[in-house]
């Protein structure tokens, strides 16, 4: 009886693992194929279909980085990501702190305004944004794109930080106030360090979001020297004889930082997602 029960559960677990493994392989295979093909040449890539190619070439990465312009795109992506994320953390934490701790007329109105922006989908908002940036002479400038992207991540970040501050005990802040610390000082030296877990979530989500952003980068930045990676990659779309190893090297350069950030930070990401899901 016990043996039969055991056998049943073994069969069940074999079945489950087969299913899970099959799905896991479909997740991993395209990425492995991308890295592997980046290490081949244009001659071998269509002939040699072994998972580990017979001869390995790193030239594609060098070519993509220099001739393909991916070195420049990469630096641009880093500039945009770092400045947007830094901007969002500053601007959103200031506002969220005020919404949670300080008092002023119209507080709820302003907070619900940000909340509403989060709820209302506005497809095609890139059209008036493009018009506006041209009017302000901010089209085709780094700062224009950075400001637009700060706005994109602002509402959600304010919401996450405000909920965090609401749950945080104000004891330490009160103590600092007693010691004569200014409001800005309390925000900078007490509240921000304590909010580190929430800030980590914001940093990761916005990093992925800015790094992966495509449409505004395409519409607002015409100058090749200003383009980020996602825009640079799309040059390959629709070209007649694609140099696949070079494209795969470009894709690897784009995807690798995201994958690394994800692997190192996956605890925060999954926690943030699950917490957000249950709160929602």
């Amino acid at each position, binding site marked *: 009886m016990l043996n039969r029960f055991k056998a049943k559960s073994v069969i069940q677990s074999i079945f489950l693992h087969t299913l899970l493994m099959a799905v896991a392989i479909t997740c991993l295979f395209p*990425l492995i194929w991308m890295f592997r093909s980046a290490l081949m040449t244009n001659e071998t890539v269509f*002939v040699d279909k072994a998972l580990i190619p017979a001869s390995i070439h790193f030239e594609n990465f060098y070519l993509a980085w220099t001739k393909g312009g991916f070195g420049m795109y990469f630096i641009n992506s880093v500039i945009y990501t770092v400045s947007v994320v830094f901007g969002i953390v500053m601007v959103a934490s*200031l506002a969220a702190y005020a919404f949670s701790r300080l008092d*002023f007329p119209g507080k709820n109105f302003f907070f619900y305004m940000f909340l509403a922006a989060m709820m*209302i989908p506005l497809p*095609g*908002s890139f059209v008036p944004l493009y018009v506006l940036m041209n009017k302000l002479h901010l089209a085709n400038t780094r700062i224009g794109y950075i400001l637009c992207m700060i706005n994109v991540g602002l509402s959600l970040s304010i919401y996450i930080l405000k909920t965090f501050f609401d749950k945080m005990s104000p004891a330490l802040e009160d103590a600092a106030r007693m010691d004569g610390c200014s409001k800005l000082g309390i925000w900078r030296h007490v509240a921000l360090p304590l909010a580190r877990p929430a800030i980590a979530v914001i940093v990761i989500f916005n990093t992925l979001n800015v790094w992966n952003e495509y449409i505004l980068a395409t519409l607002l930045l015409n100058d090749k020297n200003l383009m980020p990676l996602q825009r640079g990659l799309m040059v390959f779309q629709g070209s007649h004889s694609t140099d696949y190893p070079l494209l795969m090297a470009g894709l690897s350069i784009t995807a690798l930082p995201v994958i690394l950030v*994800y692997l190192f930070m996956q605890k925060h990401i999954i926690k943030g*997602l699950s917490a957000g899901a249950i709160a929602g």
Partner: protein
Amino acid sequence: MAETKAKRFSFLEFKGTAENYLFIFPAVAIFAVFYIYPFYEILNLSFHEWDGIGLTRTFIGLGNFKEIMQDKVWWTSMWHAGYITLIALIFQNALAFGLALSCDRDIRARKFYRVVFYLPPVLSEVVVGLIWQWILHSGIQSGEPIGLLNFFLTKAHLNHLVHNWLSDPKTALTCIALVHSWKGFGWGFIIMLAGLQTIDRQLYEAARVDGAGPFRTLKDITIPMMVPVFLMVMILTILGSMQVFVLVLSMVGQGLVYHTEVPVTRILLSMTGLSRFGYACAQGIVFGFILIVSSFTLNKISKRFKQDEAR
């Protein structure tokens, strides 16, 4: 004396309030310029005919909206997005729930699966689209199929299945929908798994003691408890899938491919291709309105479910 004291006090209060406003000033300023003004401008432009460059905008009232009502390609693109959304709702979410159920127990390598399943969602649509458009490519070079799928089909002697996946109007949209589901199921998986883990284990224990089999447990405990999570995932799936377009651009490109047009690629074409900024804005408003109404309706249903549960 008393009066000056009161005055000084209110001055301090005023200064304090002003200081508090300074905290939200940067956020409100950015929001006003980059969200509220564009919001006003999209409404304003939708009543005008404008090429995006000229100084004159011609007011045409509801002209753009009337034109949209008769724009067959626009409504076809809406149907395409609906088709992608339907596949995502059924296939992607069923897969996500099945996998979440499998991982909501003590099995080995649970962490590994969780990490791997959320890998596609962190990649950009450009990366995902470009990898898959190569795998699904139907061309031939050096006597071998360029695309991996056709290559395997040839090698497996299934030549009759070799297909122009992305250029045949019959299969292109389904391919896009499946790649979209591939990119999205990991997200649904994480949220559903989190939902499953909030269910009290004692309920399962009690059901087991009462002699309920796994299917009874699933039907009478798990699924009813998960309804709010399902509805939330559904709303977000609809909002995300209806607005898909970067994946379309990176898999099949833009222009000339009417069979894969979705609303956002139409808006983009009205703007950059046809230079009809007013029409593009009107399309955006119509589309946004449809999205708001559908998510609002689902939200209402989800609230009703919650009330029923509380009763």
